[in-house]
């Protein structure tokens, strides 16, 4: 099974950047372990000296020494906790950011099949589990290792038979624990994914809570919740069962240790091989094992969570985007032509192609309107231009360069999308326009004004919540427009961007959009034909095929064209009135 190796390799990679920190931590832990081992040696002397008639002051002095050792060990212990927590968080903060970046780089297909709730669990929940592992478990495991090694060393000095016995005992312990652990890790993984499903479901229902409330559908949603809770409960019980198996092994080991210590003493003390003090030392050393073992049980949940989490973190980090970023051609300066060379696209798992044999050339610097019924493939066409999806066959070229030859960062730096549903972030108005990048306030304000949001241009620090609380759908749309103004791209795709905006507002921004179009290639996807009155060209899409393409004026003039027919229907029903 290669799975543990992956985990250890992953762990190694995680720790390397902060190696020095972890070495200091190791030293602290080792010193604390050494003091822990010294204490019982003092007690052993007290017992043996007392039976040989030592004075009260000698015994009191030794008891005082024991007391000091215990106190110092205490201080070292706390230092270890501080060092471990700091190191763990430094290390895992790096992973959290790396993962977020990685997931953001994954393709549309990945995001289409994973709920945001699930991804939060991966990027936030799983990494926190790893962090807990590093801060709680790693130092304790190190401490246990030092303790066990030191213990065998001390016993070897006292009597070689004791050391051999201890080694045998520890080996037995290791084998039993290892066996129980594997099952526990498996069960824990099941439990984690059941919980991820439970929380993912809760999140989705909360997101849809207004809809569910208004439709009186609470009981249906609750039924689903109960199903998922039952799933979580079943896995919890299973993992607890595996967990007890482990507890048994550890508690059993301690009990057996006590019994062995007593029996060993019964054999060796009467012969004079070891003293009564040494017999007591054995008992104390067995008890000394209790703390690391109990820690292990207490932290086992952390270990189990982290084991599963580490595997999932590595899995996710190893998952490659189907959109390969291997291009090296720089972006051709200026507004690009857009060429579709016999492009077909079929989403994985779907029977029907979304686009079939699309052959199109859209000239540089022009504005193109794409029309077609919903589900006809318009949006997919725009996703291709942004390389959010890859053509199954055929090729998309921008400015004559095959899109795959452009580095993604280069491409995304020069194109922009204004989608129908705008996503806002928890943060200020400024954050939502700049998307947290550094920018001049004056530029941000200017972008907002141009986008038709002058009232926000003077209120950049106003907090907006995720989900757009405090803004209407139309205002959110304008924020997206402001984002584009600030970025100044060469190619812009508007995907039903004004669909949710009332005619007044639309009229207000149409001029702004016209100005935005100047000197850029623009693709406007729309079903409201009024949006397309100023475009240069029209593409009509139906059932994944381009059925018509030409200059708007020519198509409008041709009585038999699809577009002219749409215009006739459209003018009849789509005469948007203002006031």
């Amino acid at each position, binding site marked *: 099974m290669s799975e543990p190796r992956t985990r250890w390799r992953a762990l190694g990679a995680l720790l390397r950047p902060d190696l020095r920190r972890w070495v200091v931590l190791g030293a602290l832990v080792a010193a604390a372990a050494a003091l822990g081992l010294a204490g019982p040696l003092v007690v052993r002397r007290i017992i043996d000296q007392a039976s040989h008639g030592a004075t009260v002051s000698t015994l009191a002095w030794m008891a005082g020494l024991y007391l000091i050792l215990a106190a110092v060990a205490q201080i070292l212990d706390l230092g270890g906790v501080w060092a471990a927590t700091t190191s763990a968080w430094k290390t895992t903060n790096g992973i*959290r950011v790396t993962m977020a970046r990685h997931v953001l780089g994954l393709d549309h297909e990945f995001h289409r099949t994973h709920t*945001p709730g699930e991804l939060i669990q991966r990027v936030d929940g799983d990494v926190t589990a790893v962090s807990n592992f590093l801060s709680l478990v790693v130092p304790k495991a190190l401490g246990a290792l030092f303790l066990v090694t030191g213990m065998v060393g001390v016993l070897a000095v006292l009597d070689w038979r004791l050391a051999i016995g201890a080694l045998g005992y520890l080996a037995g312990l290791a084998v039993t624990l290892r066996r129980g652990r594997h099952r526990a890790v498996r069960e824990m993984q099941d439990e984690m994914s059941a919980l991820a499903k439970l929380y993912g479901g809760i999140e989705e229902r909360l997101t849809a809570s207004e809809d569910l409330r208004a439709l009186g559908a609470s009981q249906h949603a609750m039924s689903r919740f109960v199903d998922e809770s039952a799933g979580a409960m079943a896995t919890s019980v299973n993992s607890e069962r595996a967990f007890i198996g482990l507890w048994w092994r550890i508690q059993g080991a301690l009990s057996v240790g006590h019994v062995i210590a007593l029996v060993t003493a019964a054999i060796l003390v009467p012969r004079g091989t070891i003293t009564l003090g040494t017999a007591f030392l054995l008992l104390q050393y067995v008890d000394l094992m209790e703390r690391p073992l109990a820690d292990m049980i207490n932290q086992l949940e952390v270990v189990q969570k982290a084991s599963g989490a580490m595997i999932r973190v590595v899995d996710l980090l190893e998952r490659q985007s189907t959109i390969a970023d291997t291009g090296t051609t720089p972006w051709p300066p200026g507004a690009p032509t857009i060429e579709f060379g016999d492009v077909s696209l079929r989403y994985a798992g779907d029977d029907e192609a979304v686009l079939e044999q699309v052959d199109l050339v859209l000239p540089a610097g022009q504005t193109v309107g794409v029309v077609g019924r919903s589900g006809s493939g318009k949006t997919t066409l725009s996703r291709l231009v942004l390389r959010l999806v890859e053509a199954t066959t055929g090729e998309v070229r921008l400015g004559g360069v095959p899109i795959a030859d452009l580095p993604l960062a280069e491409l995304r730096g020069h194109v922009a999308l204004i989608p129908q549903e705008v996503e806002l972030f928890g943060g200020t108005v400024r954050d939502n326009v700049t998307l947290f990048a550094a920018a001049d306030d004056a530029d941000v304000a200017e972008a907002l004004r141009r986008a038709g949001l002058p009232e926000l241009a003077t209120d950049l620090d106003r907090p907006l919540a995720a989900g757009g609380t405090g803004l209407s759908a139309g205002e959110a749309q304008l924020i997206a427009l402001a984002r584009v103004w600030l970025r100044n791209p060469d190619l812009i795709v508007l995907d039903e961007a004004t669909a949710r905006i009332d005619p007044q507002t639309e009229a207000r921004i149409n001029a702004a959009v016209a100005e935005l179009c100047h000197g850029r290639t623009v693709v406007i996807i729309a079903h409201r034909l009024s949006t397309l009155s100023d475009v240069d060209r029209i593409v009509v899409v139906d059932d994944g095929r381009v059925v018509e393409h030409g200059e708007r004026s020519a198509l409008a003039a041709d009585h038999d064209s699809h577009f002219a027919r749409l215009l006739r229907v459209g003018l009849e029903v789509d005469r948007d009135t203002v006031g």
Partner: protein
Amino acid sequence: MHHPRSFWRGYLFFGGFFMTPLVSGWLLGRGFRALEHGSTGRVYAIAAGLAVAESCRMASLYIGVLGWVRSMSHMATFLRANMLEAQLVSGGALAGTPAGSAREAIPHFRDDVDDVIQLIDGALDLSYGLVFLAIGSFILARMNAPATAALVLPLLAIGVGARLLDGRIKRYRALDRAAASAVTGLVGDLMAAATTVKVNAATDAVTARLATLTEVRRHTAVRDRVLDEGVQALGRGVSNVAFGLALLVSAKALSEGRFGAPQMAVMVGYLGWLSFVPRIAGRVMARRKQAGVAIERMSWLVARNESANLVLDQDLPIEAHQDRPRRRPRRPERVSLERLDVIDLSARFPGGSGVGPVSLSLPRASFTVVTGPIGSGKTTLLRALLGIATNTSMSGEVRWNGRTLDDRAAFLVPPNAAFLPQVPQLISDTLADNIALGSVTDEVLAHALHLAELEHDIAAMGAGTSTLIGPRGLRLSGGQRQRVATARALVHLPELVVLDDLSSALDVETEVRLWDNLADAGMTVLAVSHRAVAFERADQVLHLEGGVLR
């Protein structure tokens, strides 16, 4: 307290587990006494006794834990159920204040519930720890009273001392939670808006922002953890110090042979659990604070923010062997609509903005269109009418056939009324489930598909209405999502349909057919729209501006 049988069974068997060490420690002492006296046979007998006692202890643990874990699962589930249900029910006594963002609400369902469960877990340990402390001290004191005092008193002192840090623990915990929420919130936003981030080339900037937030969280987490662990480490480490003190006060007894290995063995045997008592007491204290914060936060989600509504007992069938019957939808009786009157309705946000006072009347089977510029309060008006305008103070009334509705949110749901929000939210399930949100017959479903102009799309899908639509319906196009939501609103043939800009995601031809279908079905319609086709069909067009009708 739920599932009392498994709870008390678990509790009882945990008792066996906690108390056996009293016997084991005592046996260890007898063993060392026998060693001192050189009676080897006795030592063997005692070792055997020890083995038996410990075996019983393990058996009781097994039974105890399994009962306990079931009981805790039930408890966690009904806490979550109460929060979720309060968030989802429409109107009625148990409806809670809607959470602002689902992503930020998730920690209430996960971490806060965990905090409460951990407290209960700790309370169980503490109750037995205290019994152990009493009996253990008594046995030890009979052997050597001063040494026992030197052993037990420091342990108790630490337990009391740790409480002094409680205020700080609570404060650090709250700060850490806030920092954690900020990180989770941003991660959630990013995961939901991956495309936005990508097409705006914002990956570097947003990850830099994430890095800043995670650093803040590191500081809060280190403080929280060091204090928490520090309190625990203190409790643990003090056992060695206490043992040292006991040795110190016993120096004279040691030299006189009145105190020695047998007494020490009992002490060592008991010390583990004895030192556990202040540790667990400290932990319970800390968790009590954390759980207090947690309960307060969870209460935000339930009705009137009262914690009593958080802990309502619910018997949820989550055991593997239990049947899980579908819940019956909790819907009002259908009251045929003759006339709907809105009288001086207004809804104001805390800042003073909002809508109203607005008065209007909708006769049966009429078609009313509301229009107006962006931000004029169209959506707020619809939501106020339906009684779901959250975060506003509402006044005025709505009358159904002349009768004033006391709880609009409860009454204005299917089959009386249905609402289609501007951005409908779907859930990752089958198409049929998204539309029915419960069980309906095939005929009813087919009729809804027909009304919402979905038949053509469904026929093109391989699995028909069993098609899985992906998270938030992302496998469908925007227009399909809108029409699925429309079908969902119409499936129960509501008396009144309230539509917030239905046309925004639909092409012209589809929309025309949709208006026709609604008219044919004879429903009373109130819709926000800007389209001529809507105005032409409307019986009345209401123009809203600055929150009032013009």
